[in-house]
């Protein structure tokens, strides 16, 4: 190798300094605008942060593709879940009349809604695809209350940043950021293909996030917690044993 000239050393030094300070500025800006996901640590943090930041900048308001009614899958696949216990069966035998969606956290008016109450709110229906991280997909018509409507009813405080949703299955909790929670297609869904949402597909209530993969669409939800910090939930990765704590990315828009 030839010896490095003084000019080369100075140029390289300047380039490295510019690069490092550029990254520092970028990281600071990203933090300020909420572009850093809760799983930004570790060796896959840089890629994950890039994905989340890029999509938050580019897709904050974009709508998931909607399909025609002719494209609805005739044989959708209900991904099997762990056996639902006796508690769920009790709710089921009472036609979910006692099922409630509790809303708490950083809100002005803590509340709890029955399925019937949710059905009385303005509904939205969309025919969208649900895609599993494994690679399979189906298209269905989903009906539910926009999550934004519920957040408006309970009076979300300005500092809120995430909505944590929990299921009757303790490991299946997950969370989304406010951009996704306020997105018009994000539903607390209770209907599928014109009927009730069948239990294998997540009934009575399923979080429907059509711009993210299936695993963010948690089944059997019964509690929403609005927060500004995901650190206090589980291991602080934003989702439970069926998500980030099992090594899966928190943001699943890809």
């Amino acid at each position, binding site marked *: 190798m*030839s010896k490095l000239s003084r000019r080369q050393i100075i140029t390289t030094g300047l380039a490295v300094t510019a690069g490092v300070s550029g990254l520092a500025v970028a990281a600071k800006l990203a933090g300020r605008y909420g572009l850093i996901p809760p799983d930004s640590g570790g060796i*896959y943090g*840089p*890629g*994950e942060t*890039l*994905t989340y930041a890029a*999509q938050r900048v*580019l*897709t904050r308001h*974009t*709508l*998931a*593709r909607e*399909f025609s009614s002719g*494209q609805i*899958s005739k*044989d*959708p*696949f209900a*991904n*099997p879940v762990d056996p639902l216990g006796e508690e769920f069966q009790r709710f089921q035998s009472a036609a979910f009349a006692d099922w409630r969606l509790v809303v708490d956290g950083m809100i002005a008016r803590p509340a709890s809604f029955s399925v019937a109450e949710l059905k009385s709110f303005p509904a939205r229906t969309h025919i969208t*695809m649900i*895609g*599993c*991280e*494994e*690679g*399979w*997909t*189906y*298209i269905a018509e989903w009906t539910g209350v926009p999550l934004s409507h519920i957040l408006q009813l309970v009076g979300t405080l300005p500092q809120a940043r995430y909505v944590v949703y929990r299921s009757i299955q303790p490991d299946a909790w997950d969370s989304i950021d406010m951009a996704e929670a306020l997105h018009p297609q994000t539903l607390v869904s209770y209907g599928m293909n014109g009927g009730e949402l069948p239990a294998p597909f997540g009934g009575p209530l399923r979080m429907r996030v*059509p*711009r*993210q*993969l299936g695993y963010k669409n948690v089944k059997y939800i019964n509690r929403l917690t609005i927060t500004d910090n995901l650190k206090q939930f589980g291991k602080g990765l934003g989702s439970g044993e069926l998500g980030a704590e*099992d*090594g*899966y*990315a928190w943001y699943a*828009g*890809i």
Partner: protein
Amino acid sequence: MHNARPIGTLSRMAETFSPRHALLVRVTHWLTVLSFFALLVTGVEIIISHPRFYWGETGNVNIRPLFTIPIPSSRSSVPTGYGYVLPDQNGWSRYLHFQSAWILLGTGLLYAAFGFFAGHFRRNLLPARADLSPKRFGISILQHLRFERPSAQEAWSYNVLQRLAYLVVIFLCFPLLIWTGLAMSPAFESLVPSSSLLGGHQSARTIHFFVTGFLVAFLLIHLLMIVLAGFRNRMRAMISGRVTQPQERV
């Protein structure tokens, strides 16, 4: 294998060292190798969770597949005919797949910018018009079919088949791979709904698989050609840029 000995040009080489491959080409080449390998391994891991391929928008175990890969799966819900289920590796595989995709994308953009603005594509990859005549083209094909060792001047330049193969990989395969990859992203599809142009979400996934297969075939032939042309020399040319072959340029 023995290489042709350098013919008395070493002293001149030391004075005006000009690398066989530009530094940027060498760096981006190895970054591509690294990210492609990571994408390939993690891609296979992801396929194992659903080794079935479909055409159109939707596909799942209730739908008849276009074809299946006869391997066991990491999901019990997939009927494979095997009596066991492999461990789930999708978490880290997906993280690494997308991180590598970012590296590949950045590398590709850097390389493309260099290729266009520094004349690399025009000078080194665009075949000469004369080489595309049926006669010259035929000769090149015959030389390859006979596994002839390339001439010394080819240590400094690509032959016409090589140029065409690289152009197909750079301008067709990698863009298609990135496009079909992005078409599988539900969020990106909300920004640029392009999967219908590919035949649907599942079609995009199937094309993604076949383009990868094509690239693996390219890689195997690429390696075979390197061995045939002199592994050490060609590797050295792509690492340090040095070539220990006759320096006479053409």
